């Protein structure tokens, strides 16, 4: 496979955009990336699109086709990729593989998402009996998504002595950074007391420690290194792009399952950790070389647990790091210098591509007040329903 570089990036603000269609959001965002890359639509030789978005659309997610039919019908190959909340990472991987294997020299990665208000609804037409695991978790247990994370969080308190204040500090840090990100949905800064006084949702997790859902869109233009030399003086290189699925025996209690067949030797959060491990191997880069990370903080717990699972720090060390602001922008291991999902809200399928946008901004030195000093290597990782995981490592 040949080297792949990022030629251009684009992002839509995160929030609620009732007046816009998903196509309008993705088109605006893709146009930003096209402009940033210095390419024309006719130069794009392939598209990876995160699909299966909640707003449906043509064929329940022929997102790339909708885009080509709107702006550039050029006969190019497209992949509309379903991988739930990891779909952005999967779409990136599809486009990456096209360029790396010479299918095309320039490819677009795109995702846009408009999330329903309130709870994420069940799949239309899903069975209401023993055959539908999602039906079981709601009807027989009354177990919503934050409940899964809360049980992991409560166990962490038992295993490592993590306190409710640690979870709250993660939220304080996220919103402090997010307030400085122009594309974040939430720009309010919270004190520790305000977070600790927010409503308990699923003990030990409180309202301000759990991400909301948002509308958003992000786009990336990938190219061969030759295209990179032609079009940019400071290309960001894709050191690795990987996807993975879950491993048998993984002890995590995985949404929407109601049990786990736990084997002591199996990796924890395997879909994400396997993707990350493969990314380290592919890049020839170890966790000690990582300058900063963008990870999927659906709630505060992930931001403590995931850096440990990805071997960016020792098991249990995240609490100390948060206590000493070492995961802040100026710390020794900045986590989510974007402000994270907590500041943006989750636009599910778009998040993996949005992470790439944020990492590129850092590596280009364009992150302003949020700039990580000496940012050379960034890692991003997502996890999606159905045991989907993705990871990317970018470097300059």
């Amino acid at each position, binding site marked *: 496979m040949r080297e792949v570089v990022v030629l251009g990036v684009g992002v839509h603000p995160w929030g609620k955009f009732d007046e816009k269609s998903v196509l309008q959001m993705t088109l605006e965002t893709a146009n930003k990336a096209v402009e940033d890359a210095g390419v024309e639509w006719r130069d794009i030789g392939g598209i990876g699109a995160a699909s299966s978005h909640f707003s449906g659309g043509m064929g329940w997610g022929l997102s790339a086709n909708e885009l080509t039919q709107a702006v550039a019908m050029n006969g190019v190959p497209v992949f509309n990729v379903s991988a739930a909340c990891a779909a952005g990472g999967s779409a990136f991987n599809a486009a990456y593989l096209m360029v790396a294997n010479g299918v095309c020299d320039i490819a677009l990665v795109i995702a846009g998402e408009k999330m329903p208000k*309130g*709870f994420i609804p*069940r799949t239309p037409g899903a069975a*209401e*009996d*023993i055959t539908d*695991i999602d*039906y*079981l*978790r*709601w*009807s*027989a*247990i*009354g*177990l*919503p998504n934050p*409940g899964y994370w*809360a*049980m*992991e969080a*409560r*166990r962490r308190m*038992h295993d490592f002595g993590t306190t409710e204040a640690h979870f709250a500090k993660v939220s304080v840090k996220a919103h402090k950074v997010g307030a400085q990100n122009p594309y974040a949905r939430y720009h309010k800064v919270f004190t520790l007391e305000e977070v600790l006084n927010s*409503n*308990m*949702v*699923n*003990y*030990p*997790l409180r309202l301000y420690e759990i991400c909301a859902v948002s509308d958003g869109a992000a786009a990336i233009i990938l190219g061969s290194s030759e295209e990179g030399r032609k079009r940019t003086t400071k290309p960001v290189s894709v050191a690795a792009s990987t996807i993975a699925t879950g491993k*048998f*025996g993984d*002890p995590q*209690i995985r949404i929407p*399952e*109601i*049990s*786990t*067949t*736990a*084997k002591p030797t199996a990796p924890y959060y395997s879909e994400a950790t396997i993707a990350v491990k493969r990314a380290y191997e592919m890049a020839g880069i170890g966790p000690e070389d990582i300058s900063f990370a963008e990870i999927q903080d659906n709630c505060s717990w992930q931001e403590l647990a995931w850096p440990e699972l990805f071997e960016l720090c020792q098991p249990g060390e995240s609490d100390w790091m948060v206590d000493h602001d070492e995961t802040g922008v100026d710390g020794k291991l900045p986590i989510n210098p974007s402000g994270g999902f907590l500041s943006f809200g989750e636009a599910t399928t778009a998040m993996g591509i949005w992470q790439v946008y944020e990492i590129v901004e850092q590596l280009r030195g364009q992150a302003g007040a949020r700039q990580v000093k000496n940012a050379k290597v960034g890692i991003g990782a997502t996890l999606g329903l159905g045991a989907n995981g993705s990871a990317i490592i970018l470097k300059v």
Partner: protein
Amino acid sequence: MSARVSKRVPVVEGLFTWPSDKPQLMGTRCLSCGSYFFPRKMTCSNPDCKEKKVEEVLLSPRGKLYSYTIQYYPPPPPFRYSEPFAPYGIGLVELPEGIRVAGMLTTGDINEISIGMDVELVVEKVYEDDEGNEVVTYKFRPLS
């Protein structure tokens, strides 16, 4: 008391034995690798398993609490509850068979719940349906 004869009906068929004085969860066991699954599965997801034949089994009614949460707000449908909503515990229970099972706890009082405690399977009401039947599910009750 209601003049109607109310029945106790399971929230879902095929999840636990009912009616029963000693209800148990209905699972499967792989005949080759010995792994247990809940609820019942068609086959075995162990990639090293060749035969993948599974048999139906009933799971131990006792286990240890691995972790828990308290559900402080009413989940959306298809969850149903009888007004007024009362916060309830949800536990992740380690069974001797080597699987962890999520289920409601019989209490929502955090002072009655601790990691590592022994729990026992019971069947209790979730809500009352329009015909006056008690719709029941499996729950775990603290044993100490």
